[in-house]
């Protein structure tokens, strides 16, 4: 393939690019290298953090109980930081660069700043990880004051956040350049719009993080005498929760991307999908308030406005995506002739393609497990049933692991051949990887939620309370659930390890995607890249199957929601 040189209008830099033989898109060298660097570091943190997750789950398996108490909290802190911050956010920066530079056919704005961002993020992540491993910073993911970590723990997080912020600005800068240089027509593609949503939420997230972490850092070195614990919690969750909404926006964008690239699926309606993202931009971040539902000092008006009235508008956004993506897939499949009956389109979907399988599993599990449990947890009254129990990690492993992580894994199966230009090794095993990981994570989510419903607390080393002055017995089922949680955690770990091995193996030892290899087995069907990289809706969509799926979803949702109100009514019997 030819390597050409483009002179940006008004830009002094000359940048190299290649024209991708599979997608026809221009891929600039700097953008490509930055995408690779961020993705590789992300995967390293996933490997490390996933191992910590396994240790946590094995400790919470009463029959195994592998770590001693101090180690448990240390490893739990390291697990949360490595996966939820470092794995996810490095990968998201790669997605931002992909969705701007690659999909818009444009050079990346200020690649030097992008490298600075990368360096700060790597440095910050390492410093914070070292601080946790040194043992003086076992403050867990939320690091609530007055628990105090070592100063370099906060410093590491601040450096990491500054780097990520610069990455977001590079994304915005690239949007500006692409518009000025008219590298695309009309509106930006939907996938880029989803990435824009993620970047916007990221900026609010990082601003909240700065407001709270900088004073906390100063407090840890003695410049500030006290941080009010309730204010800390409030502002911290402005970061802690919003960052989950970056994940949602990013993985929804990835769902649209995979549906477009694998099946050529166009959104049912660009307008409706973009409006759904707009609902995210306006309302999703208000849901931070669900972390404050159990705080006595704050009014019910604030809680209910932020977690119900406004928040349900954002849930509406998710439901729109949840319907429009399977709908787009159904329409595309019917266009390809899979028209028999209600579900031929689904049965004949490319289940052996790990990009598609991972994406669809992610969509289903995010909706059914993560979405429904999230609305239940976010309702002021029924939140009391599960607050601070294992139900909470059960819920967010469904959203952020089965949802986001699995979606990011799925898209990697396209990134490796298209961006790294390497064949996937172990194709047979790769087919199974999303199922192993998905089923493992679904199990851990469900069993943690089950144990939480029985009252088992989160972040707790010994559910047997063996040396506590007051004894307490959980029901036998709770112990069973924690054992099953451990078993499924092992399954998830095998799936996760397989992902890491396949991706690292392919990147370093995979056969290059030569022109012959591409001709023999194209990664994506012809024309699919055009769908992902341009504006356009499906014409005359037909989606009876999707309507059935959506109905099943609503019925499950309503039933489960009301079951929880019934549970609540039984907590304080009135007779």
């Amino acid at each position: 393939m030819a390597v050409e040189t483009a002179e940006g209008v008004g830009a002094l830099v000359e940048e190299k690019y290649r024209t991708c033989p599979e997608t026809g898109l221009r891929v600039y060298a700097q953008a490509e290298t930055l995408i690779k660097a961020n993705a590789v570091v992300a995967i390293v943190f996933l490997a490390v953090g996933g191992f910590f997750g396994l240790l946590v789950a094995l400790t919470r398996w009463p029959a195994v109980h592998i770590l001693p108490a101090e180690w448990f909290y240390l490893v739990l802190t390291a697990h949360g930081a490595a996966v939820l911050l470092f794995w996810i956010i490095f990968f998201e920066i790669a997605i931002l660069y992909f969705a701007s530079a690659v999909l818009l056919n444009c050079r990346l704005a200020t690649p030097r700043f992008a490298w600075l961002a990368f360096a700060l993020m790597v440095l910050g992540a390492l410093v914070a990880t070292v601080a946790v491993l040194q043992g003086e910073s076992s403050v867990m993911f939320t690091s609530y004051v007055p628990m105090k970590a070592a100063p370099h723990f906060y410093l590491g997080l601040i450096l990491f956040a500054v780097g990520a912020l610069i990455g977001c600005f590079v994304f915005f800068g690239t949007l500006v350049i692409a518009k000025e240089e008219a590298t695309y027509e009309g509106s930006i593609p939907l996938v880029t719009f989803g990435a824009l949503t993620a970047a916007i939420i990221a900026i609010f997230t990082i601003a909240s993080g700065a407001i709270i972490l900088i004073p906390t850092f100063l407090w840890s070195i003695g410049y500030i005498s006290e941080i009010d614990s309730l204010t800390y919690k409030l502002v911290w969750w402005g970061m802690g929760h919003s960052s989950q909404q970056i994940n949602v926006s990013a993985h929804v964008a990835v769902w649209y991307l995979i549906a477009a690239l694998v099946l050529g699926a166009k959104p049912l309606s660009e307008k409706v999908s973009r409006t759904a993202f707009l609902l995210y931009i306006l309302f999703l971040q208000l849901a931070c308030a669900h972390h404050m539902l159990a705080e006595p000092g704050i009014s019910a008006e604030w809680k209910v406005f932020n977690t119900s009235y406004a928040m349900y508008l954002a849930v509406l956004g998710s439901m729109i995506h949840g319907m429009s993506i399977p709908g787009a897939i159904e329409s595309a499949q019917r266009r390809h002739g899979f028209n028999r009956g209600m579900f031929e389109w689904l049965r004949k979907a490319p289940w052996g393609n790990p990009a598609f399988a991972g994406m669809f599993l992610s969509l289903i599990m995010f909706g059914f497990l993560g979405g429904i449990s999230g609305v239940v947890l976010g309702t002021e009254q029924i939140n009391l049933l599960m607050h601070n129990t294992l139900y909470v990690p059960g819920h967010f492993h469904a959203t952020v692991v089965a949802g986001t992580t699995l979606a990011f894994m799925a898209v990697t199966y396209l990134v490796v051949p298209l961006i790294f230009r390497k064949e996937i090794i172990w194709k047979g095993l790769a087919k199974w990887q999303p199922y192993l990981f998905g089923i493992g994570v679904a199990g851990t989510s469900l069993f943690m939620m089950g144990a939480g419903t029985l009252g088992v607390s989160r972040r707790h080393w010994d559910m047997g309370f063996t040396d506590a002055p007051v004894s307490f017995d959980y029901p036998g089922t709770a112990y069973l659930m924690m054992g099953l949680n451990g078993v499924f955690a092992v399954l998830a770990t095998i799936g996760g390890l397989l992902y890491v091995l396949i991706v690292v193996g392919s990147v370093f030892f995979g056969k290059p995607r030569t022109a012959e290899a591409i001709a023999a087995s194209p990664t994506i069907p012809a024309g699919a890249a055009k769908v992902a990289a341009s504006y356009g809706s499906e014409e005359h969509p037909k989606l009876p199957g999707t309507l059935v799926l959506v109905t099943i979803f609503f019925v499950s949702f309503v039933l489960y929601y009301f079951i929880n109100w019934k549970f609540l009514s039984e907590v304080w019997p009135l007779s």
Partner: protein
Amino acid sequence: MAEEAQGAPAGGRPVRVPVMQRLLDNPFLLLFLGVVVPTVFYLIWGIVEVANIPIAQ
């Protein structure tokens, strides 16, 4: 600007772009909204709530 991007016929009357599309095509306006809404309803209102809790004597 947005009109050009929508491909207004050369020399003809500029095509009127609907308000909603102008909003969706303007990343910086979206950024502004996405930061202001949660800052007002969640952060500022929340801090007012916390500040109004009486201090124990």
